[in-house]
Each structure stands twice: as structure tokens, then as C-alpha cells.
């Protein structure tokens, strides 16, 4: 049965499947004892339109890795198992922020932290030498994206962008979010939205493809930008499957973004991408071409990867490359200047998980990628997660913050004899 069925076309396969799993009625007609009830275990056969099934026994173990809904207690954080290069140090910046996702600083030093599975946005402050985290917005729908400009915090939810004005002066009595934009389709798959403020003072927001692999609607599969008042929305980069992190080169002001590759193709392909936008409107391949060099087996017929912009780096298959920032500080050694830190959340659609780390990308003078290397590792231990990094953010003093939605904590990585972050 195993060898025969995969070669059959859809209807034939289903029919063959039924005959092989003959029910009691058929058996009784032939005078033989009733056959056992059809097995409910998936059979290694093809399903019409889904050549990615047969279900091997191994891939049936693959499933999404949910982040725990409650934050880990401060004494149960895995800080001791997180490693960084010589001369660097890791400590907990703040904990107890369940489902900690995007990081963004206000002008007065407040750290804002978002949620994806949960409904809140938090503000972390140092007041009277004490660091505390408090909720400043709740009841939101997947409020993953954060941007800050001129005293106003902008929040990107699943289907709308809203603002909290003068928020840092009103942390104890925050205003209700005011919606400025809501022209988004409502979808669950890739519906959460990373957001950032561009050097042009426009809001850039990811509008994910509402599927694993499909032709997305024209409104999706893009990074869109709009004015701070919600007007003038336009696609900036298209052919983007789902980006959960982007930032601008400090000198050239070009947008670089990570993109998560499709699932259920293979263990090793495609890799997640780092892309660079040199001109508005460029197409980065999805769903036709993956990682710049092969066409998709379902969507790629009649297409060529030459039609699309290739990534500047491949970041590993199913590594879940998410938040990224250019390093603009002065604390770290010179080699880190104007390079990129990227959080890799870690695999779910791969038997041997990779990622669960923060990597550092070195650029060439011309903006292409020279190399990349692990920087902060240890979130993945023996193929299991003890944490999952989501976003990175450079502090004013040049240290690096890393959010972890698995433990609900934010870590701080510092270099040299810098003053301890304290509690």
C-alpha cells in the first residue's frame, strides 16, 4: 500500500484507499467476515492538491511551539545557560512581562514591550532606582507592532494601528488608544504585525501572507508604509511572506528586513532570509521563488527566480529570523558598528531545531552581507527551548536588549566594565 498509492492521482488514490480499507458492507457481499472498521490513522497516500502529504511518521511529530501564557518567575529564568562572546555579559533587564515581543524606547527612556498571543502593551521604567513594568494598554488584538515618535506610541494590532499620545507623561493613567488606520484584512495566519518608524517619519508595517503557501491578495505579502496620521498608505516592498523585523541602515537609510520562509517543503529548504530594499516596490519572490534561487513546487510553475530580488543573506532553514536592529552604539567593540543583530526565534517545522539565538551580521561597504555568526546562544538546549528570542533593541548606553516571549523576560547584553543594569 505504501509504495502503490503515492503514484496515483487524487481521485484514484481516494478510491483505491476506500477499496483497500473495504468496509463491512463490501465484505459481507462477498461472503467473508466483516472487515475491521477503517483505520483512522493517516495512510501514506497523496491527497488531491496536496503533494506535500504523504505523512511520514517523523514529520507527524512536528507542530508549532506555543509560548507559555504566563511569565516565568524571576528565579526560574535560564540566564545562566545563555552564552555570549568573551567580554560580554548577560543579565535580566526585566521579567514578568508575559509574552514579551517587540521592544521600543520612548524619548524619555521608557521601554515599551508588546504582546502577540496576549492582549497587552507594557511600559518598563526606572523610577527612584527601581525598575518596574506596568500595563499601559490591554484588551488589544495581537498588539505586536510598536513605534514611537514625538511623545506618541503607535501600536499595530491584527487589524488596526492606534496611538497613545504623550504616553510617557501619563504612564499611571494612560489614554485609551486612538485608531488611526484600519485598512487590513482580518486573518489569523501571519496576522500579527511588526512595525517601525522610518527615517522619513512614516510608519512601516508588515502585512503578512494569510497562509503558509498561496497567492496572497494584493493587499498582503508586503511591507506597507503610511503617514503618521494614517493617510497615504502604499506598498513599499512586495513578495514578502511574513516579516517580523526590519530596520534602516544608519548611513544609507536603506530598509533591511527578515522574512520567514514557507513550511512543509523540506527539513532544509527554504532558508529564512535577510533582504535589502534598494528601491520602493521591489518584489522579493514570495510565493513563486524562495531564497532567491529556487521556484516553489506548487506556485512557481512558469516563473523564474531572475524576476525577483534575491536575499542578501540566508539565515538557516526554519530558524524563524524575527526582530533585527543595526548596531549604532559605542559600547561594543568596533567590529559591531553598523552591523545587524537578528533574533532567531527557533524552529518548529524541523526535526533538528535551529535558531533560538541572536546572530550578528557583518556587512560589506556596499551594503551586501560579508558573513554572519552566532552572538547569543543557549535558548535551545538538547532540541528543547528554555527561551525564544523575539526582538532586539540597542539602548542609549550601547548595550543590547533581547526580548523572550517564552519566559516573558527581557535580557540585557553589555560589554566591558559597563555599569550593571540593576533591578
Amino acid at each position, binding site marked *: 500500500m505504501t509504495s502503490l498509492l503515492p503514484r496515483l492521482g487524487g481521485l484514484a488514490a481516494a478510491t483505491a484507499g476506500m477499496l483497500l480499507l473495504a468496509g463491512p458492507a463490501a465484505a459481507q457481499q462477498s461472503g467473508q467476515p466483516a472487515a475491521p472498521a477503517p483505520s483512522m490513522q493517516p495512510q501514506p497516500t497523496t491527497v488531491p492538491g496536496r503533494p506535500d502529504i504523504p*505523512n511520514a511518521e517523523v514529520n507527524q511529530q512536528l507542530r508549532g511551539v506555543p509560548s507559555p*501564557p504566563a511569565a516565568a518567575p524571576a528565579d526560574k529564568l535560564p540566564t545562566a545557560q545563555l552564552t555570549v562572546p568573551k567580554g560580554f555579559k548577560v543579565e535580566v533587564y526585566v521579567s514578568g512581562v508575559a509574552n514579551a515581543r517587540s521592544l521600543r524606547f520612548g524619548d524619555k527612556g521608557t521601554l515599551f514591550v508588546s504582546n502577540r498571543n496576549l492582549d497587552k502593551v507594557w511600559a518598563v521604567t526606572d523610577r527612584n532606582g527601581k525598575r518596574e513594568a506596568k500595563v499601559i494598554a490591554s484588551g488589544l488584538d495581537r498588539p505586536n507592532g510598536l513605534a514611537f515618535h514625538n511623545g506618541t506610541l503607535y501600536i499595530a494590532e491584527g487589524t488596526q494601528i492606534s496611538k497613545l499620545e504623550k504616553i510617557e507623561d501619563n504612564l499611571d493613567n494612560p489614554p485609551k488608544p486612538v485608531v488611526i488606520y484600519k485598512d487590513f484584512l482580518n486573518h489569523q*495566519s501571519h496576522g500579527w504585525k511588526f512595525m517601525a518608524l522610518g527615517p522619513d517619519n512614516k510608519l512601516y508595517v508588515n502585512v503578512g501572507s494569510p497562509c503558509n503557501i498561496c497567492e496572497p491578495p494584493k493587499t498582503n505579502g508586503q511591507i506597507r508604509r503610511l503617514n503618521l496620521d494614517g493617510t497615504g498608505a502604499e506598498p513599499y516592498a512586495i513578495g514578502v511572506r511574513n516579516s517580523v523585523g526590519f530596520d534602516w541602515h544608519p548611513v544609507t537609510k536603506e530598509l533591511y528586513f527578515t522574512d520567514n520562509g514557507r513550511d512543509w517543503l523540506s527539513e532544509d529548504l527554504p532558508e529564512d532570509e535577510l533582504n535589502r530594499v534598494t528601491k520602493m516596490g521591489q518584489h522579493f519572490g514570495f510565493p513563486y521563488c524562495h531564497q532567491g534561487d529556487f521556484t516553489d513546487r506548487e506556485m512557481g510553475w512558469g516563473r523564474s527566480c531572475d524576476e525577483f530580488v534575491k536575499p542578501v543573506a540566508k539565515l538557516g532553514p526554519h530558524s524563524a529570523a524575527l526582530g533585527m536592529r543595526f548596531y549604532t552604539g559605542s559600547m561594543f567593540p568596533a567590529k559591531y558598528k553598523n552591523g545587524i543583530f537578528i533574533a532567531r526565534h527557533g524552529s518548529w517545522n524541523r526535526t533538528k531545531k535551529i535558531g533560538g539565538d541572536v546572530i550578528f551580521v557583518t556587512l560589506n561597504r556596499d551594503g551586501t552581507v560579508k558573513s554572519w555568526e552566532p552572538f547569543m546562544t543557549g535558548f535551545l538546549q538538547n532540541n528543547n527551548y528554555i527561551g525564544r528570542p523575539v526582538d532586539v533593541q540597542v539602548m542609549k548606553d550601547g548595550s543590547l536588549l533581547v526580548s523572550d516571549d517564552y519566559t516573558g523576560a527581557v535580557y540585557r547584553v553589555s560589554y566591558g566594565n559597563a555599569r550593571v543594569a540593576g533591578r
Partner: protein
Amino acid sequence: MRAPRRTRVLILAAALGCLAPGASAAPAEERLTPCLACHGERGQSVTPDVPSLGAQPAFYLLTQLIMFRERIRPIEPMTQMLRGASDEELRGMADFIARLPAPPPLAGSVDPGAAERVRLLIQQHRCNFCHKPDFSGEENAPRLAGQREDYLLKALRGYKDNTRRAYEPQMADVATALSDADCADLAAFLARAK
């Protein structure tokens, strides 16, 4: 004539009080008495549209309890009953409920035509990948085997029309691709799955 179920739950909740927010460390069993009045003391619910909770994964129970407490899943009686409970208290409740016995499946099995339709649906949507081959569930994927048929149908329809909020996005994608007849087939099969 009985008051609508929602009203009855609210009256019950009011009579028994909220689950002692924070003040005492009453054992989980005590605190769950009002809950199990609807959900069933031995893991099986006999209340229409109210799910059996026995042998649900503790991770799943905790996510749902937190979502009810925070009103992310907006079922008001549930939010009221959980108001003020700490994360630790909810963990204790989840662990206790997970140890209740699994609800016994309905007797009998679906007809061979339905069985084959369900087999193909499971294969296509990879239900067994998250919910396990025996549908006992794991982590964020609930036990489906032996769940109330009416509740399974209600849940699938809720994911399909976006009235039911999930912790993760997968079920909305799956349900979008299902017809109502598919949902009915799946509910009938899973309620009888051993």
C-alpha cells in the same frame, strides 16, 4: 422553564462567590467546586454546549484560563469566575483539572462513508500532528477524543466564523477550509474516538 444557561451560571457564580481572589490559598479542588457544577465533577460534562475538561493538557487549560481571566476569550461568566485569580492559582487549577478522568467516548462509530471523509480531512489538515494520533491532545492542542459532540461542532464553527479567539492562529486556518458538513463529520467522529 429554566432560565437561560448564561443566567444560571451567573446566579451560581454569585451564590458561590468568586474564586476567593488572592486572599486564601484554598486547595484547587475546593476552588473548582463551582466550575465542576457545570463542567462535571468527574471530567465529563452533561451540560449542553459546555465542554468536558477531564484529561485536558494542563498547558491548554492554563492558556484558556488566562484568556478567560483577561477577557481575551470574552465569555463573561468565565471571566467573572476567574477575576482576581493569580497565575499560580490558575496553574494549580489547570494541574488539578488535567488529572480528572478523560470523558468516555460515545458508543458506536460513524458509518464507513463518514469515516473515510474524516480520514481524508485528518490527513489533509494534519489534526493528528498537534492533537496526537489518539486525539488526546498535547500542550496547546486540546484533547478531542470523547469531547461532547455539540461542543466540538460549536468550537469548529467558532474558529470558522472568527467568533472564537484562539491562543495561536492554526485552528482559524484549518476551520476556514472546512465546510459545515466537514465540521459535523469531525465532531461526530471525535466524540466517539477511543
